[in-house]
């Protein structure tokens, strides 16, 4: 019978260094059948194996329209992710997925879209941007607020121009500008961008992903600006060892982040006691 724990072998096709601690990898499954059948939705993740080192959940960060070669943008923080930083094109990893719910792009009648990301949190939102660009006429106003620690740590800068050309308003901010770095944009936290943003609550869906503390301020700020909990979607992170609702690690109250999430309607999280969330999303 099908074994959901058995990774499929995938080859590293390409490596793009994004920042000092983050890299985007392009993968392709070795098995032709697997490669052809693989499909994913924006916001879904894969379990990425380095044989002998371990496995880690990583969001897919590339365009869902091109599933035969897909990308992961990885921050090198622990065993699996740091080991990956030492690998080369042509090396083999294991991948299984995709897992989880995605951003509700098809589920909701979305007119306007507000995307708010912090740091690596842009990775699971990049497929949304790709898809929006592909299906641009279906959407109204689309705005992206994105913050990183420094200008050098902004992900995907080469693509910003294309996004803007597709009629997406992109507001950037950084926490700090190290001396010697050129930066003319905003300095401050993501929520500081609220003052400049043009998105309004009416008919807008908000997708946000970033550190939980950031998301918590984002949500507070949005609620203060008249957004409703039902409009806001957050992507959560918990420890995961299986990705398929078996190992139990990612539970938040009755929810399994791997299966019921990682994208949750904020309204849904409101039904849980604050402590159960453990983090700061509320």
């Amino acid at each position, binding site marked *: *019978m*099908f*074994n*959901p*724990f*058995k*990774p499929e*072998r995938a080859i590293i096709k390409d490596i793009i260094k994004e920042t000092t601690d983050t890299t985007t990898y392009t993968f392709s499954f070795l098995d032709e059948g697997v490669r052809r059948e693989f499909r994913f939705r924006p916001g879904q993740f894969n379990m990425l*194996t380095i*044989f*002998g*080192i*371990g*496995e880690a959940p990583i969001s897919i960060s590339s365009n869902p329209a091109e599933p035969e070669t897909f990308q992961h943008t990885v921050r090198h*923080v*622990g065993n699996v*992710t740091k080991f990956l930083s030492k690998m080369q094109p042509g090396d*083999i990893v*294991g991948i299984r997925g995709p897992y989880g719910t995605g951003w509700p792009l098809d589920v909701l009648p979305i007119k306007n879209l507000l995307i708010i990301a912090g740091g690596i949190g842009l990775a699971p939102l990049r497929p949304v941007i790709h898809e929006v660009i592909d299906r641009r006429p279906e959407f109204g106003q689309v705005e992206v607020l994105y913050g990183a620690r420094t200008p050098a740590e902004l992900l995907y800068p080469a693509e910003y121009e294309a996004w803007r050309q597709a009629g997406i308003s992109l507001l950037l901010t950084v926490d700090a500008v190290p001396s010697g770095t050129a930066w003319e944009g905003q300095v401050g936290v993501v929520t500081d961008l609220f003052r400049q943003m043009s998105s309004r609550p009416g008919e807008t869906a908000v997708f946000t992903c970033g550190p939980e503390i950031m998301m918590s301020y984002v949500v507070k700020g949005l609620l203060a600006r008249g957004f409703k909990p039902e409009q806001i979607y957050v992507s959560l*992170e*918990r*420890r995961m*060892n*299986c990705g*398929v*609702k*078996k*190992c*139990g*690690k990612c*539970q938040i*109250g*009755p929810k*399994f982040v791997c*299966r019921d999430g990682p994208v949750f309607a904020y309204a849904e999280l409101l039904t849980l*006691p604050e*402590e*159960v969330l*453990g*983090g700061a999303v509320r």
Partner: protein
Amino acid sequence: MSVAYARQEEWSIPQLYHLPAAKLDPFLNKLKENYTLIGPVVKGKEFVFAPLSDPGELSLHYQTTLLPPKKVLHLPFEVLFSFHEDQQIIETAQEQQQQIIFGIHPCDVHAIAILDKAYTAEYPDPYYIAKRRNTLLVALNCSEPGENCFCQSLGTGPELKDGYDLLLTDLGNGYLLEVGSPRGRELVQVMDLAPAPRVAMVEKQKVLDNARRKFQKKLNTQDLPGILEENFRQPIWEELMHECLACGSCTMVCPTCFCYNVVDKIDLNLKSGKRQREWDSCMLLEYAQVALGHNFRKDRDARVKQRIYHKLVYYEPQFGTLGCVGCGRCIHTCVKKIDITDVISRLRGE
């Protein structure tokens, strides 16, 4: 895939047999010819489920075992696959051995039904299923509840109604044997057994009524989710934070706990190796810790709550059932004697 085990179905009577005490061993010997028999045996002052090499080792007069029979379906340690120098993945052969868990109590049968839900729903677990498919349950109704048992409060004992292949009730001079599935019927056919006399069912109820009177612990299930949700902040949780040792024992012995951790074991050549999973516990500090050290349940009280809320509140929306079967193992095993029934009655102000 839907996995229906041991469902009560239509089949021809008789379904009730009499198994005289003297025929128990011959029956076991017969079963042993085709199945691995696993049953309660003595270990020190306790009991454990173990493969029976000789029917004489079986101790049906047990109250509870250290680990639940879960351990033969969801193994404490299990190799998921091995990988080779060329990164080929070799799945470990999934066990096909036919086995019978003999003498399993009603609470543990219910627990397996819960595990079935967790492990056979979306993304069925092939390791669990391979074993589960080949496992028959010969259950034993309880006539002597243990001091920590409270299955009665949860409707998971002392009498089993469903979920078995065969069901035994000790009537003193022998057993009433009820057939619960077609596979169970195949099992009884190895012996030439007489149908049970009509009074057997009456005697069975006497035995069970007697057992029902002996329960020392109970858990009031009325509006449990409501009670727990209302009482998320109570001094008792802080008390438990100081009391609990976070040793993890309560969850390691729980028949419905399914959590596991995954570890890759690499060989000295640094190329080949295996991926292994082992039971994990939400009571442990590292359980909810992620890279860079953030921990979502750093405080002990958050973990105590996770365990109790999961069992009594969250299982329901997750799997449509309570997560506790009242086997009392977590109470027995706890060095601090932290008692889930006591926690609930204190929250209720009883």
